[in-house]
């Protein structure tokens, strides 16, 4: 069955909340019902039909075309199915997602994959700050699933992450993996300053080191661990570039000893 296709007519005048447009919330709805769903974030009412051309189809395989960075909360709470977005999107893409596959063929804004619990997000260009991170007042960020960023990520990628895997094939900003509780963050190229800042547990892997090391991480030497082989085997399905980071023995830094100190940063020797 052909997918449901929503094509943005033009850049909207206000930021839009696309959280109603996920497969499980659209299941069983007619094109007319979808057309009338409200997306506004201001007092001015905007419906799907106002901003999108709708080509009816199966919402389990959705496409959003001609997207722009004013579309927030794409794939919010997504539980299954697939959404493919052509173009950039705004903030909180894939927030609280529990399953399915979300592909963004462009860049994303702040808090992508925030609070994500399951499923897979692929971002073909760059991700903004707080990738996988919690919103204000939340105790944990990402809690499961896999996020792959083919380009660069902003600051604080993986902040307060509890479970799951983040792969950044490019560079990451400052404080990657800050306050991590557990989980895995792989930066294939260079991280900014102080990766793992205040991390308690969890694993950060750096393909090309970082701009500035935190003095509260302790060098534990170079090791060729079985865990690296398991990680490489797991990430190979998502990113060959990430799997390549594990080809040679990695230097292990334990930290952040400013807090619990049971986390680790693996760094490839160059």
């Amino acid at each position, binding site marked *: 069955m052909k997918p449901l296709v929503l094509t943005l007519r033009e850049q909207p005048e206000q930021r839009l909340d696309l959280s109603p447009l996920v497969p499980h919330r659209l299941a069983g709805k007619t094109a007319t019902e979808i057309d009338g769903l409200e997306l506004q974030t201001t007092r001015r009412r905007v419906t799907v039909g106002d901003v999108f051309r709708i080509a009816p189809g199966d919402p389990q395989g959705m496409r959003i075309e001609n997207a722009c960075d004013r579309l927030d909360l794409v794939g919010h709470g997504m539980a299954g199915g697939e959404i493919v977005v052509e173009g950039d999107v705004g903030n909180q893409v894939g927030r609280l997602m529990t399953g399915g596959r979300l592909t963004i063929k462009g860049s994303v804004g702040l808090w992508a994959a925030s609070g994500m619990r399951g499923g897979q997000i692929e971002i073909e260009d760059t991700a903004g700050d707080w990738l996988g991170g919690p919103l204000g007042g939340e105790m944990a960020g990402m809690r499961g699933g896999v996020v792959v960023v083919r380009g660069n990520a902003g600051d604080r990628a993986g902040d307060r992450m509890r*479970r799951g*895997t983040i792969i950044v094939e490019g560079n990451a900003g400052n404080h990657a993996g800050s306050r991590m509780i*557990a989980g*895995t963050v792989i930066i294939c190229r260079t991280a900014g300053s102080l990766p793992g800042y205040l991390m308690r*547990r969890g*694993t950060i892997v750096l393909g090309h080191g970082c701009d500035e090391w935190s003095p509260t991480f302790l060098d534990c030497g170079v*090791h*060729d*661990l*079985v*865990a690296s*082989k*398991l*990680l490489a*085997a*797991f990430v190979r399905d998502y990113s060959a570039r990430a799997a390549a980071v594990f080809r040679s023995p990695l230097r292990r830094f334990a930290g952040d000893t400013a807090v619990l100190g*049971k986390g*680790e940063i693996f760094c490839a020797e160059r």
Partner: protein
Amino acid sequence: MRELIVKGVRVDDTFAEAFEMRATALTITADAAHWARQAAVTMTGFGTSVIGCGCEAGIDRELAPKETPDGRFGVRVLLFAVSTTELQKQLQNRVAQCVLTSPGSACYAGLQGEESLKLGNAVRFFGDGWQISKRLGGKRYWRVPVMDGEFVCEATTGLTKRAVGGGNLLIMGASAQPTLAAAEAAVKAISAVPDVIMPFPGGIARSGSKVGSKYKARASTNEAYCPTLRGTVNSALDEDIASVLEIVIDGLTREAVAAAMRAGIAAVVKLGPKRGAVRLGAGNYGGKLGPYHFHLKDLRP
């Protein structure tokens, strides 16, 4: 007892009586093939019979690097016990004492069962707080710091309650050497069958037992199959038989045990009565104790 003659080998019209057991499987890997084998051999040692060892354990097969989670050479090990509690205890002790201690080893679930047993979840405490949990996909692994690096162990492994223990073949020959040759041929053939083990030394038991004893013991020698007592007791042996060896087979399923017995019978028959066994039988308790009956006539080639 009626008997069939298949290519010169007499096959008793009888059956092996087998029992329900709890079973689990592990994949043990190491940096080198011989160290994976060593860990597996050590772990399955003293695992011949539930009567005295707590469990019956053995190597199912060797695994190529592409078949294992960490891409290293591996060995699949099966453990069988009469209760889930005993199986958990044996698994925990054997992994902790024999696999954790083996250089470069790692340990993974070898079975996806309807229920699970603690594997790394039990051994992780050796890490004394330095152990690290890593969840990848749907699986959780424990990384325990040890003196050569880390011992990686999957958190749980599967349990099956449909396992079958006690499939067996009695291989009878005119003297010790051809009887052993026939038993070895059967063991080699059965080794190729997946999901089964032969827990006795080299797969062969020379001291087949009966239930009970005149002393305070749960089992004692099966005098009906002891050739030196042929004239003394109500012997099951013919005049041309001077040696009997038994192969005991445990399998994860009834079908696996049947396939193993079929392979063993075929190997003995193929060797023939001149170079191997003159007669094949099987042990049972009259069919009243075990729910699984493997009739030799149904399994002959």
